[in-house]
């Protein structure tokens, strides 16, 4: 058992730390915020291009396709430093979702065409999975793609599509035929968002902001060369991606950052030299989360080590999404607790009320954060999966 850093690891850590220090400036930090700033699109692309230039845009990709070739320890160090520096993770849709599907199941032509632009952030991707009638029960999707010569004609409606308003491309699960099981007859299609017949409608969430969308397809023509793998076999590719996605959802580095910020905030004096951090009950609430997070960090490391050794994550990885999202929600809640009255504020204008703005941000994150246990396969579905696949129930 060891997680000791070698000399090289420490040098690497210093390099990462310096890079974030130098390159992730306060303007970027402000604009990226929690993914809702005014210049969000430009800023995230600018930042990702910096990472791309540095060669660090895709630590999880195989080296041959543009990955970093880092050891697990290096990946861990990179993530830890990212969290410490408050640097947001890269957008997952291209780099963590469709990218791996393309390099695993795509044709050489598809790889050549799409992977470079994912790496360079010249293509903004979004994910077309959920539908109004197909949420947790994803396989019951009905968006259809009818084969018509060299094209599919796509008709249907995707929902909860994050950041589709900025997207150049969408990867979709569509129904190409009716199989005996509903998982059959699904295909995995890459669709240009500028195709005629696509309409994007905003969905405003309970935090009052816009990051989700409905994407409507009316007779959208998609060339057959945009099909990934075999027709009707899309569920297999999607499943592989989901497993991949799940291990990316622990968000330990980000939760650690939130925890540090929480402790800082709570140490700020309220009246009479008191501070919330001195309150034993509050301490207990914080340490409840901190303990779980400390364990989760090692659960993630165990999963990484297991992937490195056996080529696949062990049973421990299946809890990453559940625990990771529960922990981040608990941290949101504690931030909101610190904010007290100020958590109520919306649409603040005057710069001088910093605390009120901080409270307002905490509230927005809390509210939007409720989605974490719903999307990416709700935590109920995750529990079903573990019961079946891990416990054999």
């Amino acid at each position, binding site marked *: 058992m060891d997680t000791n850093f070698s000399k090289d690891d420490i040098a690497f850590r210093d390099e990462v730390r310096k890079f974030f220090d130098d390159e992730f400036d306060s303007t970027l930090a402000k604009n990226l915020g929690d993914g809702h700033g005014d210049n969000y699109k430009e800023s995230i692309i600018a930042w990702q291009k910096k990472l791309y230039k540095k060669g660090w845009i895709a630590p999880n990709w195989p080296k041959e396709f543009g990955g970093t070739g880092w050891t697990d320890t290096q990946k861990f160090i990179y993530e830890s430093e990212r969290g410490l520096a408050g640097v947001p993770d890269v957008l997952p849709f291209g780099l963590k979702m469709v990218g791996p599907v393309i390099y695993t199941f795509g044709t050489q032509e598809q790889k050549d065409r799409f992977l470079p632009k994912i790496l360079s952030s010249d293509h903004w991707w979004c994910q077309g999975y*959920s539908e109004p*009638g197909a*949420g*947790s*029960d994803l396989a*019951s999707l009905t968006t259809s793609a009818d084969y018509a010569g060299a094209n599919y004609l796509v008709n249907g409606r995707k*929902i*909860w599509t994050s950041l589709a308003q900025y997207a150049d491309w969408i990867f979709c699960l569509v129904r190409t035929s009716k199989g005996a099981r509903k998982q059959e007859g699904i295909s995995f299609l890459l669709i240009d968002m500028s195709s005629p017949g696509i309409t994007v409608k905003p*969905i*405003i*969430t*309970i935090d*009052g902001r816009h990051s*989700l969308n409905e994407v409507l397809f009316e007779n959208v023509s998609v060339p057959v060369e945009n099909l990934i793998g075999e027709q009707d076999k899309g569920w297999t590719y999607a499943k592989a991606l989901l497993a991949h996605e799940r291990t990316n959802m622990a968000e330990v580095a980000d939760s650690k950052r939130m925890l540090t910020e929480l402790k800082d905030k709570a140490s700020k*004096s*309220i*009246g*009479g030299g008191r501070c*919330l951090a001195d309150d034993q*009950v*509050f301490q207990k609430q914080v340490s409840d989360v901190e303990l779980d997070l400390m364990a989760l960090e090692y659960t993630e490391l165990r999963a990484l080590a297991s992937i490195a050794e056996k080529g696949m994550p062990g049973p421990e990885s299946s809890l990453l999404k559940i625990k990771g999202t529960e922990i981040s929600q608990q941290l949101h809640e504690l931030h*909101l*607790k610190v904010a*007290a*009255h*100020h*958590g*109520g*504020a*919306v*649409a*603040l*204008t*005057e710069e001088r*009320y910093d*605390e*009120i703005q901080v409270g307002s941000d905490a*509230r927005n994150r809390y*509210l*939007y954060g*409720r*989605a974490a*246990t*719903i*999307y990416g396969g*709700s935590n*109920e579905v995750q*529990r079903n999966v573990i019961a079946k696949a891990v416990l054999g129930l």
Partner: protein
Amino acid sequence: MNFDFTEEQTMIMDGISRYVREEYDFDVRRIIKDSNDGYSKEVWRRFSELGWLSIPFDEVYGGFGGNPDDLASVMIELGKGAIIEPYVASIVLFGALINESSNESLKKEIIPKIINGDYKGSFAYIEEQSRFEITDIKTSATKCNGGYTLRGQKLAVIDADKSDGFIVSARTDSSQFSTDGISLFLVEPEAQGVSLSNYKTMDGHSASVITFEDTFVSDENLICAVGNGYSHIKSVMPQILLALCSEALGIMETLNKLTVEYSKTRTQFGSPIGSFQALQHRMVDNFMAYEQAKSMVYRGLCEANNYSSGSIDLDEFTRVAHAVKALVAKSSKQIGDESIQIHGGIGMTDELNIGHLVKRLMMINVEFGDGDFHQKCFGQN
């Protein structure tokens, strides 16, 4: 032993319920919420006509002379309807403080106006450093000729931008945390040196930062005797907490109802999601959380009557009120979270009422101290 609302209370409740159904549905609420005023003058006028603004006020000033049960019956229904008119600020908070005031001329002047819908008020007591401690006051009121000079800043004053007057807590004596030396003043927004910075709150209400720069307040605007502010606030605190918790109760009832209904209609994996045992058990837990909250609010109301009749003293009543607020906070959190989770994606949308009801619960939670604060007060005694 009796846990029913009276016939009269039931009539009021039916009246509000009908009003919400016929005149204040979710679309109307949205229009009012997004309007410039943030409330509807017309609706407020109707509230006055229907007598709902008179509930807690003494009959000598034209009020209904209601007890905590009466107010609770109103609050439960307002909660169910997610009404965003400034009822809590004007009637529950400001109303309680003015109704118990020892300043007869002020009461004679203001209470009838409130009842007529011509006057709205709010209570300015939170400061930058105070969190939930009502004695943590830095705002000062210095005696001057014929009155006092106010200096300081109050935060998170709910619905202040709609108000014709604020009751402001300030120190006329003693140091920052002392229970002595606190006085309460009625201040008008137009008074010299008063400035407001307003913002919306997540439940569709508004709040303000109010700054007092050498604001003169006359002796006649004292709500209670000089230095008696703390005991004045303390004497109305339990009934305020009960009213807030009653509103929360109405909201929780609605959330549970909507969630169970939704679970019966939303189909996934070929069955209504309400047929899945794991969700069933969680909805049962939500049902229990609601019933326990209801029992606790009823316990508070029974103790309010025991307090009125002199069988228990204010400390005992206050301890129960702490308990009510603390338990209602827990149930609110659980039911709020679970309502969104069980609704899934649709529960995350601004379009659906679920999120708005949850946000109101969240605001009630921090109003006059959050659950942790009240549980600590309760547990220490």
